């Protein structure tokens, strides 16, 4: 790499009673948007706090543009964090909030006013300078927090669950906002989230975390199309997961046997995983076979169906007892199977992926 990464974590470990973060090494290149994706308890917030300087790692180093800053306190680091609870100053106006960091740095009042005004314009909060914080809506508060951090032109902006706790409309609006700011200001951003949609739509690169360890690093497309294992697959929405009885390698396709049926699969990337393979499918790619159609899998007994607006979720069971959930279109033309009825399903022309099985959630 030509220039050092804006942030690099070098074998970082954090241990409380148990290790929360284990031997994490990652890099955030200058100008990129990297997301750490993981369920709650995976250690993603811990990583953010270690980078921000609010926690000291048990072992490992944190480098900003190649310089080791592991020992520096939060106020001496060239990064700014927007925590989930924002921490806007309730006794200050919008403008005072945004100017705070400049004032602490001893920037003169004229420059302070100019930068604050510019940044408020960027986040579309002109005219709100003198408003007290408690008069703002949730979305406006988020934008004040963004402006307050970005006005300092941080080497890296850290976002802690930036869109969690907002309603859907606001979430979409702010997602666009963050994306726009990232492009316009060329800011380097590291976000943590448990929401795969957020991660997929915002990031250049995603790091999937599980129990303090990195499961996969890749572009959103790589993560979504080629998840490294069953855990990552489930996390990015491959909810239809089956455990095959046996797997045979072939020349073009591989074959897996599920409930007595032979299924053609994509060849796996990794060979001979420790816990065997699972067969994964996107639940929206499955449909119910017509009576005369050659099916890919069946018979399945329908346990229940649930109307989800755009789709109907079908919960079914194979003859070997494995459960399979999938989605069928809720269009009026598609018949919803009755509970207890027997169906066959189709997913051709796509082929299921064979992925290494992940151990049961810790």
């Amino acid at each position, binding site marked *: 790499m030509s220039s050092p990464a804006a942030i690099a974590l070098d074998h970082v470990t954090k241990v409380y009673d148990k290790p929360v973060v284990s031997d994490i090494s990652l890099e955030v290149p200058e100008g990129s948007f990297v997301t750490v994706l993981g369920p709650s308890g995976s250690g993603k917030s811990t990583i953010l706090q270690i980078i*921000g300087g609010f926690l000291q790692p048990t072992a490992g180093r944190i480098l900003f543009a190649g310089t080791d800053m592991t020992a520096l306190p*939060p*106020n001496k680091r060239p990064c700014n964090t927007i*925590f989930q609870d*924002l*921490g806007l100053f309730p006794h200050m106006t919008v403008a005072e909030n945004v100017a705070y960091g400049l004032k602490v740095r001893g920037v003169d009042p004229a420059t302070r006013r100019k930068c604050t005004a510019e940044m408020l314009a960027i986040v579309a909060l002109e005219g709100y300078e003198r408003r007290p914080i408690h008069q703002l809506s949730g979305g406006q508060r988020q934008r004040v927090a963004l402006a*307050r951090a970005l006005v300092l032109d941080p080497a890296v902006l850290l976002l802690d669950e930036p869109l969690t706790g907002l309603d859907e409309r606001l979430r979409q609006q702010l997602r666009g906002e963050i994306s726009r700011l990232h492009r316009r200001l060329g800011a380097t951003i590291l976000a943590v989230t448990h929401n795969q949609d957020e991660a997929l739509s915002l990031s250049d690169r995603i790091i999937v975390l599980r129990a303090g360890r990195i499961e996969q690093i890749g572009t959103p497309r790589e993560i979504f199309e080629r998840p490294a294992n069953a855990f990552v697959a489930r996390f990015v929405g491959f909810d239809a997961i089956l455990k095959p009885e046996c797997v045979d390698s072939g020349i073009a396709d591989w074959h897996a046997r599920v409930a007595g049926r032979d299924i053609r699969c994509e060849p796996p990337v990794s060979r001979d995983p420790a816990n065997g393979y699972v067969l994964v499918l996107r639940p929206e790619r499955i449909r119910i076979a017509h009576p005369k159609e050659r099916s890919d899998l069946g018979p399945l007994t329908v346990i229940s169906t649930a109307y989800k607006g755009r789709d109907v979720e079908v919960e079914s069971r194979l003859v070997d007892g494995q459960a399979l959930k999938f989605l069928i279109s809720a269009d009026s033309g598609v018949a919803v199977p009755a509970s207890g009825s027997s169906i066959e399903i189709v997913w051709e022309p796509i082929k299921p992926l064979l992925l290494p099985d992940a151990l049961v959630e810790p």
Partner: protein
Amino acid sequence: MPREPGPDESAGAGLRPAGFLLALPSLAVFVGVGFIPLALIATWSFWSFDPDTYWIKPAWSFASYAALLDNGRATVFLRTAGLAALTATASTLLAVPAAAVVGLLSGPRRAALLLALFTIPFFTSGLVRAFAWRLVLGRQGVINNALMSLGIVETPVEWLLFSDFAVLMGMVAAYLPFAIVPIVLAFARIEHSVIRASQDLGAGFWTVLATIVLPLVLPGIVAGFLFVFVAAVGTSMEVQLLGGAGASSISIMIDDVLRVVNFPLAFAIATVVVTVLTVLIIIANRALRLSRLFESLGI
């Protein structure tokens, strides 16, 4: 993130008939034991008093108010206010660090324990506590004995007891918890995310203290000061038990005037004190929204 009510929501929807009925019991208590007695006192302070016959006539007069500053009463007013201000200042200065430990640095369990410890002195009567200071500060008291046996002084230090210093000690000890409670509430209202955010934006320890913590705790400090000040203005016990010869206070003065049955004058003094204190509290509340401190208690 809990959404704070907007300006229109918090302004209150006014009392609807059902709300009025529900508020009636507390309103009745407030009017019965608060407003009516005060109104009577204020009214009677304008009646006339004949010192020869001890007759209180329902004839409007400002004579009592004219007599307020006679016979050295002005000095008593000023001394009482001064001593109360000194007590409130000392109590507040002591209360801020104590409250910071309770409200900012302790978890809920330890905070509850520490608050309980602060209230234990109230298990004994104030009279006993004031008297106890005599045993500490007296000529044969704990401090003088210690100083003499250590050879620091030859004869007992006289100004320890029966002095303004003794009164101050007694009052600070008695009213310190009044200052601690509102300041604890103010500290407890500071969200840690706010402090973390200011550190993140580049503020070191002292900057956080000066720009975030102090402004947010200021309403609590003013409320604590006022609580102690109001209590100290109204006290007589510490002055009587620990004060020097001729020491007086507004309460003692009222008591003296009541002894000669000059009710209008006593009521006039009381009315002035209540008015001044009320105005002080209203101004402070307007300026700093002190009432918000107690919102977290659900009052």
